[in-house]
């Protein structure tokens, strides 16, 4: 028996927002659904959203879930979390927030919360007309053939959730949970990730430990380019997007958002949270990022 919280059990026995949302003819209102999961894996989620077109807000969210107790509870939690949010804000709901809302999930069940996050993205991308193929992470090397999990997805979820072991990756994205022949490959992905993180951390620590003279313009551009390449782009690419450094004028960094990020209406948030905040943290606190 899994050790579920009272909140998980409550939302399993008394799910909120269960069901579909019927198509709506009302002007200014859109209805859309996003679907993730697979029969082979034993869980799937169909998330329905009713959206106020003018304000870009989620008026209603409902779910249909094929899965276990925690999958049903996670779906219900997700709908509660996103109702009333703008789509941009909803896109920033993480699987961790879903799990936290439930008072936690057994680690082996964390993939249920990841499924919620992915269904939300699928629904919003569909509404925004972004081809789901653009967002799919299949472009990266396939690591787990049993569950069809790519390297990009493993990297993204590992970064977002600070995963350090193969077992944790299995709990969050199922990779390695089948024949487990990919365990060594998952370990390699994690090793690479943490090697990168360590290198950057060491550089930053060094920079902070020794009083640094102001960066020259060449040093500044080199460092910005490096942070973009090593820290920012992998995260965006995992979501089907990309970013390219265009120019640096004083403390203004001009970038080009590409792929899914280029056509995504939440690109402003991406720019501020994923790019600017990271560059301010890693290069210079006074940097401002603009998309051209």
């Amino acid at each position, binding site marked *: 028996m899994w050790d579920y919280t009272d909140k998980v059990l409550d939302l399993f*026995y008394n799910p909120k927002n269960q069901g579909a949302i019927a198509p709506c003819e009302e002007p200014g209102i859109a209805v859309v659904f996003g679907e993730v999961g697979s029969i082979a*894996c034993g869980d799937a989620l169909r998330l329905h959203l009713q959206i106020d077109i003018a304000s870009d807000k989620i008026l209603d969210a409902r779910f249909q*879930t094929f899965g276990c107790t925690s999958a049903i509870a996670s779906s219900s939690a997700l709908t509660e979390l996103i109702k009333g949010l703008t789509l941009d804000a909803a896109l920033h709901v993480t699987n961790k927030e879903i799990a936290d809302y439930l008072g936690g999930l057994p680690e082996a069940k964390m993939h249920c919360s990841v499924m919620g996050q992915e269904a939300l993205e699928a629904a919003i991308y569909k509404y925004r007309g972004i081809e789901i193929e653009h967002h799919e992470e299949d472009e990266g090397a396939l690591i787990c053939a049993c569950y069809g999990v790519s390297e990009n997805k493993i990297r993204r979820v590992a970064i977002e959730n600070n995963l350090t072991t193969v077992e944790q990756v299995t709990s969050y994205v199922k990779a390695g949970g089948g024949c487990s022949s990919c365990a060594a490959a998952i370990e390699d992905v994690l090793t690479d990730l943490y090697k990168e993180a360590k290198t950057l951390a060491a550089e930053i620590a060094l920079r902070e430990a020794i009083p640094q003279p102001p960066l020259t313009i060449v040093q500044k551009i080199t460092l910005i380019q490096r942070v973009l390449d090593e820290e920012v782009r992998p995260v965006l690419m995992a979501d089907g997007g990309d970013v390219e450094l265009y120019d640096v004028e004083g403390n203004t960094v001009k970038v080009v958002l590409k792929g899914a990020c280029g056509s995504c209406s939440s690109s402003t948030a991406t720019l501020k949270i994923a790019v600017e905040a990271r560059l301010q943290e890693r290069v210079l606190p006074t940097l401002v990022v603009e998309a051209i």
Partner: protein
Amino acid sequence: MNIIYFDNNATTQVDPIVLEAMLPYLQEYYGNPSSMHSFGGQVSKAIQAARSQLASLLGAEDSEIVFTSCGTEGNNTAIRAALAAQPDRDRIITTQVEHACVLNVCKQLEKQGYTVTYLSVDRHGQIDLTELEAALTGSTALVTTMYANNETGVVFPIEEIGALAKSYGAAFHVDAVQAVGKLPLNLKTSTIDLLTLSGHKLHAPKGVGALYVRRGFRFRPLLLGGHQERGRRAGTENVAGIVALGKAAELAQQHFQSTTLEQQLRDRLEQGLLATISDCQVNGHPTQRLPNTTNIGFKYIEGEAILLSLNQYGVCASSGSACTSGSLEPSHVLRAMGIPYTILHGSIRFSLSRYTTAAEVDRVLELMPPIIERLRAISPFNSDRADWLQDREEALASK
């Protein structure tokens, strides 16, 4: 809340008579059976009595019984003992639906150079004797199969399997953990060389089991140490457990006729569920099945969700879905049978015992339809989407 227990293939309740028999050996008679003094001697006699009780149930001789700690130890010992006794043979035959304590030993033996054939099963969970015969060679050291499957209750034709194994000079081991106490056995007239059983599946406590070793069979022990069990299983005996197993064996023999009642209740449950719930099926052979077991798959929903819903009412059952285990893989037994994912993930095993009552069966029959209905209402894969689901499944199967 009263517990309604339908998980007897996982474990059984200790019979009160068994408990009564074993308690003195936890308190009053605590002597070591290997000791030379009479205080230990009387404990040794209790072990011998238990050996006779168990031998009687199996149709075996007392000297052919080796007490162990559990089914896993019995299976590990049997497989390794058989191979050690035939170093000139390097092939093993088993089935795809064995318990993990057989499959994982076989996988390890493959790494050590043995060739293992895993016989397939058909959609009813039954093996094909022709496939077995084709796999047998003069190099086959061991054929190891279960008597009855723990998940589906499907019963293998062990005497036919044994006869084929013998014709190639192979040893024959049977994992009878689920069958002992439920199916009659007469090892005197059997082709079985080695047979494993576990106490807690027949109303004895956990932590005791036994291995039958046919007289004259060349045997190499797994556990080395003292001379207990005639040197075939070293270690101070779990006396209370052994006494309990002996008493449980005696009671099982007395209760054999009650398996008919168990089967009637099982059939009532099975037929009731099939009659009141749409889109479900029995996973297993229609007739070649343990009298106490039914495994039913409910389409479009997931097993753990069914189990937790039943648990709310105190009903204990089991599921073959991935979500009920630490593994992410659903039941290897149901997969081997080719059960579609739509049904496989929603499969529930109900296993009865002689304590199961008609009222308990009726309670489950009352609870199940609304539970299934509620979960299907949540599921996106309802019957109106069956075509879509079928397409996805076919696409998956073709990968």
